[in-house]
């Protein structure tokens, strides 16, 4: 079964700040599952704010759907805040690793050419295999994959989930948390 994309679907990046508790990923993913949305990429790490974890998820959907999904994620008790962005609001990156046959790579003649053109680098190498690394947007890592596949074949390939940072100055969350603490102080005083 192929996945049917909603009409007018666009790639959105959803950023979620959460407490670091067990089972959080499940709470997030079931909200996508319920609406039959495929998660394209996912990465989880600590944020710049201590104790708060950050999920970066990409998914294709219409904006109305994404708004509803983000609100339903935000509603979960352990989620501090969820946002969505389109590519224009973000600086984002993915990383890809390519395992290739060393003899075949050498047979291309100029390794330097491919490394320079794609701004890739060699991570490890034996006389049997070599591992290239390239960071970039999907289209860029995919272009290298395509060229290598066509010319010499790729033994193994992996691409990470998107990591993204908004173009605003700090994590927007810090403002929100500061405002919340202020309110608490007022309430408790």
């Amino acid at each position, binding site marked *: 079964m192929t996945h049917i994309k909603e009409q007018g679907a666009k790639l959105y990046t959803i950023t979620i700040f959460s407490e670091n508790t067990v089972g959080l990923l499940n709470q997030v993913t079931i909200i996508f599952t319920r609406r039959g949305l495929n998660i394209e990429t996912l990465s989880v790490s600590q944020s710049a704010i201590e104790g708060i974890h950050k999920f970066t998820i990409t998914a294709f959907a219409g904006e109305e759907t994404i*708004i509803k999904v983000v*609100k339903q994620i935000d*509603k979960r008790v352990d989620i501090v805040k969820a946002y969505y962005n389109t590519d224009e609001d973000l600086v984002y990156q993915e990383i890809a690793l390519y395992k290739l046959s060393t003899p075949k790579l050498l047979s291309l003649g100029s390794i330097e050419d491919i490394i320079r053109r794609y701004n890739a680098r060699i991570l490890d190498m034996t006389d049997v295999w070599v591992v290239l690394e390239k960071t970039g947007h999907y289209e860029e890592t995919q272009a290298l994959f395509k060229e290598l596949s066509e010319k010499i074949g790729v033994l193994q390939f992996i691409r990470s989930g998107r990591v993204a940072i908004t173009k605003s100055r700090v994590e927007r969350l810090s403002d929100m948390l500061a405002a919340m603490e202020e309110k608490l102080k007022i309430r408790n005083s």
Partner: protein
Amino acid sequence: MRKISGSQALIEALLHEGVDTLFGYPGGQAIPIYDTLYDYKDRLNHVLVRHEQGATHAAQGYARVSGKVGVTVVTSGPGVANTITGIADAMMDSTPIVVIAGQVPASLLGTDAFQEVDVIGVTQPITKWAYQVRNADEIAWAVARAFYIASTGRPGPVVLDIAKNAQVGMTDYQPVIIDHIRSYIPVPDMETEKIAEAAQLINEAKKPLALVGQGVILGNAEKELLHFLRKADIPAASTILGLSALPSNEPLNVGLLGMHGNIAPNLKTNECDILIAIGMRFDDRVTGDLNTYAKQAKIIHLDIDPSEIDKNVKVDVPVLGDAKMTLGELTKQLKENKHTQWIETFKPHWDKEIESVIKSELYPETGALKMGEVVHKVSEATGNQAVLVTDVGQNQMMGVRYFKFSQTRSVVTSGGLGTMGFGLPAAIGAKFGAPDRTVCLFVGDGGLQMTIQELGTIMQSNIDVKIILLNNEYLGMVRQWQELFWQERYSETVMNNPDFVKIAEAYHIPGRTVETREELDEAVKQMLETKGAYLLEAKVLQKGMVYPMVPAGTCVTNILLGEE
């Protein structure tokens, strides 16, 4: 500090939260909790149900009438699995319950141990919060957090999955108070500019209509609602969960919304110029086809849950916040107003409904008893003071259409999930939640048999619920759909029923069957005069129908009225 067991810490924490009643069922991984309860019998009433589903519905019934958190205690595995329907129901209907489940010892988690089920995984989609307690030291904190989350903001179910080792382990108990969670905003900030915008729209409105949802009751905003409506002279219709927020005899109460609601408010939804939705979520059973729903109106939506805004219906002015506050603020900015002409336009539709539907349902002169007739008689005989509990289906629609209410928190029904079998256990819980009120359950022959074992609970705990069985020997609501939309192909909706009065008798619950109009008054009187539980079986018209009806997915003005 004195060390106590996790189980004792649990019970102490429950008492600290003001819990007085538990609905539960013991089992292997909950024995330590039950052992502790044995010492707390004088302080904590445990109601032994006959099936864990019943425990959750009872907790719901308790919560709905009392406004307090309902509590269920069950064992691991099948015990907690049986609570799922009640948890899902509480999630849909925003009912604050806490389900406390035993779990296998932490050391056995993930090993497919006997009676282990992944409770957190299973319940996360249908709970406001689900948490696994793995050691005794967490218990006081987890209970405090559970009650805080279940009862604040938009209420909902919480599950605490307590591993056996946490129950038997020793801990320094100290009560915990939680009144803040940094990742959780129970009540969003009220935006004054939105209030002003809403007030302006309402002040300019010629034909305003308010839709009252359960949010009014959950927010204890009944008084504020009445002031709001009266000041600006706004007619108000109710969802089934919003019923009893306004008294039935309030002149501005123009009736029930939705698929089996009243003609007038459904039609007027598509005629009003301003629609003011208060603590309701535009369920499809209320809106019908969204593409034709209230397109002419500007829509103001008051809700505590931001994820409800624009979820089903695009809103012109969202007003986030607690209904008590937002209604109060909004009312301050309203002009005194009169909409006499507009309100008068509801009347002909009411007259039409009375003529074409209500008269023949409530006051038939010949033929078999009708469902509405029975509901009406019971409501009248209680002076419209009783708590209405319903099961799901025709009995429910007849109950909510014809029962009358004088005070708030008088309706316990499964709205969002539509859970057959909800009624009997929910009525049990309702009686504990409102011990001084008469609790009348309307249930069908189908739904009663889904949780009929709870008659045992009624017997054992001497619970005074009046059970009115509307027996039509069919799964009536599905049969109605089959008659209307499926060429009368009554696939699996015919019921071969037992003698219900004899079954009740086996549980020492008195009862009688009525088949004729002449004996109905007397039978209702007998039921209400009997001390304790009573089963009144009314053999009603087998192919009775609930009208009016807006067929699913069609426009709210597309109203079927039957043959009249």
